[in-house]
């Protein structure tokens, strides 16, 4: 019987160190998708801030097909609503959602993305 991988002991679950830390500015990459993803369209290409590191687990694109692959770090990313929706009128409002690491890239400043370790993507 196969258990949820994220319920394994911390020693077993962590086989990759987290790339991002709380406070990092990250952009959600608009990667190709087919059949299944849990990375929402409305966050694609938007820059947010890492709000929390949560756990390490399989990515949905693999777990949903019963593939026992590598685990990777998940993060809660916080966005300004004004950055997500063109017409959003309230300055203070925010939205948070969770993302596995591979969907995120580090942004060095507000003016544009700086893709770290581009060759390894």
């Amino acid at each position, binding site marked *: 019987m196969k*258990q*949820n991988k*994220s*319920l394994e002991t911390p020693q077993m679950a962590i086989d990759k160190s987290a790339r991002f830390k709380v406070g990092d500015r990250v952009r959600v990459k608009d990667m190709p998708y087919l059949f299944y993803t*849990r990375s*929402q369209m*409305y966050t694609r290409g938007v820059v947010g801030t890492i709000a*929390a590191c*949560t*756990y390490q*687990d399989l990515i*949905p694109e693999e777990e949903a097909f019963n593939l026992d692959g590598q685990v990777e770090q*998940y993060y*809660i990313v*916080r966005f300004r*609503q004004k950055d*997500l*929706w063109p017409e*959003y009128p*309230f*300055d*203070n*409002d*925010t*939205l*948070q*959602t*969770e*993302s*596995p690491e591979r969907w995120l890239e580090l942004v060095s400043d507000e003016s544009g993305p700086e893709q770290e370790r581009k060759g390894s993507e």
Partner: protein
Amino acid sequence: MSHTHTHGDGGADHSHRAAPMVEEITDFEVLEIAVRELAIEHGLFTAEEHRRFTEWAESIEPAAGSRLVAKAWTDPAFKARVMEDAVKACKEIGIDWAEPTGFGTPSDYMHLVVLEDTPTLHHVIVCTLCSCYPRPLLGMSPEWYRTTNYRRRLVRWPRQVLAEFGLILPPEVEVRVEDSNQKCRFMVLPVRPAGTENWTEEQLAEIVTRDCMIGVALPRPGRTADVHPVHKARRPVHSSPQHGEAAQ
């Protein structure tokens, strides 16, 4: 129904007789029975396991979340433990996220995050992709939470949707939508309202309704129920109190 017929037409089509009266059963009811019986016949699970999980499903209720909030309001050290490790803190109010399997339910996992409101920060929760919900603490999700309508609109027009629930917040308050799209499960810890000084935990729990812990309502003295229209079932669950409705 048409009763035209011709005798001697081979007799294969009996539409000239009224259809046999059947005890009304829907196609999904039939499919559900078929799947469950085949699964048991093939040894994928036992009827006893199905019964045991049903028992757990009927035991979960929002009163557990209410207890957690009331305790967090009255006991700052407990609140700190909730914010540090919410799953562990749940055990103190009698909720074990590992139940009933011993390693958590397949859908709810064991990554609870409690979102603490402040006077300038209001959280509201949605799962845009399906209807992920902290069942061990809040019971079954309300129907509206599952709808494509709520899931489409809350992330983009949160203040409009909240206004429809009767909750209007000033622009200075940050409305933060939490889209629970992965394995974390979320619950709102609302701000303790004025007028509840010296209340007992039981009194406080009474005003912390399920809607307050999703973030579509604010707790206040005298408000002890979430009022929504209820669509009745054709063949409801008989044996236990309805879960998923406001139990307050």
